[in-house]
């Protein structure tokens, strides 16, 4: 069964790629010929999300919240404003809510209906976030999904899943790892992984920094 599935996937992926390549190019050509879009706008958008906006933004937010109690308080009271003060916001980040992970509560974010994700602080979502397995199972079996990521939480930790059904976007603030006392924001930000800000991971420990 598993073997068959893989076979199918390869098959579809391979044939779909060239098909979609052609169809996407066709649309782009039409839109440019008809004057709806300036080709430079397409290049600008691709470059922005490939190079400029990504999880390093979110990591800065988290690191600051670890060292600056006032910022942390503000972040949980008004995520949009606090995050905006670092220069992040806009598209898929107009209404940001920060969620605090603690030893007793672990937060996880999903969009069961499509693929809502806080682009402004995390960039574009990875494939797994948009996949049927993640979208179907996270609300019903979050511990099982965490196990797919190699994460096992204590049995009595409350797990809060946030299904992004509206235009609110969630940023999980992971727990600060032990042994990082006195670290700079820049160094702390290196511990903050993308997955730890979705809730499918935890921040790296100092040992994991190479």
């Amino acid at each position: 069964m598993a073997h068959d599935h893989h076979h199918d996937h390869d098959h579809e992926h391979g044939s779909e790629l060239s098909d979609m390549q052609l169809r996407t190019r066709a649309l782009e050509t039409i839109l440019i010929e008809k004057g709806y879009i300036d080709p430079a706008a397409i290049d600008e958008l691709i470059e922005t999300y490939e190079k400029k906006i990504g999880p390093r933004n979110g990591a800065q937010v988290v690191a600051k919240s670890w060292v600056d109690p006032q910022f942390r308080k503000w972040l949980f009271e008004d995520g949009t404003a606090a995050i905006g003060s670092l220069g992040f916001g806009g598209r898929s980040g107009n209404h940001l809510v920060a969620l605090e992970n603690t030893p007793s509560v672990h937060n996880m974010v999903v969009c069961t209906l499509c693929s809502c994700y806080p682009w402004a602080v995390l960039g574009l979502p990875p494939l797994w976030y948009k996949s049927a397995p993640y979208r179907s199972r996270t609300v019903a079996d979050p511990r099982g999904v965490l196990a797919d990521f190699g994460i096992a939480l204590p049995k009595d930790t409350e797990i809060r899943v946030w299904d992004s059904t509206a235009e609110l976007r969630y940023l999980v603030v992971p727990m600060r790892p032990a042994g990082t006392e006195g670290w700079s924001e820049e160094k702390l930000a290196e511990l903050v992984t993308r997955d730890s800000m979705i809730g499918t991971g935890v921040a790296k420990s100092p040992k994991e920094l190479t």
Partner: protein
Amino acid sequence: MNGGQDLGGMHGFGPVEPEPNEPVFHAEWEKRAFALTLAMARPGGWNIDMGRFARENRPAGEYLAMSYYQVWFAALESMMKERDLVAEDEIAAGHSLHTPKKVERVLSPADVLKVLHRGGPTERETNTKPAFKPGDRVRAKTINPPTHTRLPRYVRGRIGEIERVIGCHVFPDTNSLGAGENPQWLYTVRFDGRELWGPQGDPTATVSVDAWEPYLVPA
């Protein structure tokens, strides 16, 4: 399981398109896939509920993209592979490559009509009493087992009325897992269209499902 097979109330599939003068089978291979499935049940040692679970137990996109007998055939293949009756290399070669397993009984042409006539009755003797009687209001439980169940998603959590006590029948939820027939009382439960679908429901329509006692609680 909440899979591609649980279609009640889904949108987006378009109109029903009846085919004029539809043949019983649409291709020669469909006939063979049908007959093989019926003929292998006994030697294969599976029951109807295991067969249904094997059909639905796949990604919804795969289930929905397959034709009807493609689903049957895929389930037949997977059940035979699970039981080491046939291996993938044999299907690829189109010939037997490994020693056959001993099986219970091969269906002979002489037995075909007898077997079809006997069918597979699912009613069982019991000394228990049914918990509900006609007219009782019941709520279908909220359950979401990842394994086979015959309680469709669209009735879960909804309130209906017991219309008929059918008898004590084999329970698919356990039978499909090889965990025993575990017979349970079976009822016809009638639901109002608006109870199921809310304001979008047709006030003149009701829907009845057959539901085993473990699916129901008093409302």
